[in-house]
């Protein structure tokens, strides 16, 4: 059973679709696992000016995508990188244990998009983000 917040973000997802003028994009998950999140960002002056997502997945996957995008919108890259899956789950008033992996996915999706931004700038994201940002391993969560 989902919290009212989860249901609200599932029913009325914020920031949905594909940004017209994004300059960073990240995809995590894979269809085998039934969860794919794709996050589009428009980053300017180190700030996430705009953000959107597309998600294939369960109610929690949609809601965590929606919530995570809300939480980093207008924030600096550093602030966005500091977003934890726990913070996303808490902002949604909690998730059922079996669904916690969705909040992990949301955190990773944000990081992957930012990694894409760095890569496009010719910067190696690995030292900054802590992984190669090629997360397609949702099934292991």
């Amino acid at each position, binding site marked *: 059973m989902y919290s009212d917040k989860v249901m609200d973000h*599932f029913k009325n997802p914020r920031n949905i679709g594909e940004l017209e003028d994004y300059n960073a994009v990240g995809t995590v998950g894979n269809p085998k696992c039934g969860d794919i999140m794709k996050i589009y960002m428009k980053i300017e002056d180190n700030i996430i000016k705009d953000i959107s997502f597309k998600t294939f997945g369960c*109610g929690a996957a949609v809601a965590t995508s929606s919530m995570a995008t809300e939480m980093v919108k207008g924030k600096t890259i550093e602030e966005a990188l500091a977003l934890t899956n726990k913070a996303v789950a808490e902002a949604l008033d909690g998730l059922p244990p079996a669904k916690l992996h969705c909040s992990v996915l949301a955190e990773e999706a944000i990081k992957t998009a930012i990694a894409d931004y760095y890569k496009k700038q010719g910067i190696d994201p690995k030292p900054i983000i802590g992984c190669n940002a090629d997360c397609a391993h949702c099934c292991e969560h």
Partner: protein
Amino acid sequence: MKIIYADHAATTRVKPEVLEKMRPYLTEEYGNPSSLYGFSYNSKRAVEQARENIAGLIGADVKEVYFTGCGTESDNWAIKGAAWANGKKGKHMITSKTEHHAVLHTCQYLEKQGFDVTYLDVDKDGFINPDELIKAIRPDTILITIMFANNEIGTIMPISEIGRIARERSILFHTDAVQAAGHVPIDVNAMNIDMLSISGHKLGAPKGVGVLYIRKGVKIESLMHGGGHERGKRAGTENVPHIVGLGEAARLAKAYMDENIKKVTAMRDRLIDGILKIPYTRLTGPTENRLPGLASFVIEAVEGEAMLLKLFEYGICASSGSACSSGSLDPSHVLLAIGYPHHIAHGSLRLSIGEENTDEEIDRIIEAVPEVVKKLRDMSPVWENGKPAWA
């Protein structure tokens, strides 16, 4: 918002006539059927009347009908009880890959106890192949347990054939008929069924009552030891109200079976036709030998749980064999067994209807599902240019 209940394979409403019959046994007729004084005779008689009704539904003798606490208990009892009672004759059992967990997990439990279980493959429609069954039989095979009808894709197994194969070789045959009983004709003698499981809440009786039919002469150990209830085979004070309810539901099911099958099948077929208009959508399970009320699909590039939640925004109650709806990581073992890859199995949708559904409700479902699918595909990163990324 009015609810459209299209999840009868999950559970059913207690029929008002059934509740009416139960009422006295929830109120003034509270005597313990085991008690001696006249006050308890009505409870006892009511239980025996229910037993007759169950016997009538499946062509059994009343003395072959045992009440249990649920369908799961019936399955556990049949399989463990037969395994333990006949373990000296052999340790091999045969089942199928698409059984309900009540059967599969029981078989896996017995494997840990030293039994050897063959899990038969099924074809793309969910049928086992009787020739493969014959090939799987060994001299030490003591039990065949194959479900009557599948709860996810509606496949009605070739029960008469399986029964004949088992009987010719003197191997016990149990069938989980939880989805079938009351919905399609069953005759335990004609079909050579030795044990058969029923669950009340799938046919208009309450949750928490079941039946195990056990053919006279079948050797079976008890699962529940204690008092001498159920002719010494299943201890525990009888759930009189629920048993009465199940008896009445069985009576009604028998009386209206032909009528209900006709009505429900027509609605189901209309539903199937409507849903299949959605592109990249497939019917799961067969078109023939299918449960009258069960319409099941895989819809590509959308995830099952998300569909259910969105459908409920329309008041529609449905079900899915997706990983997310089951809380596990792998989608339904049934959809995998009939050959769907994971990414497609995730888009599973089951609509299961009953005779109290209306044509109007079917119309509303046929309208709602495409809308829901469109909304989800619009936000799906694997839906591109009107088709799945993998298409």
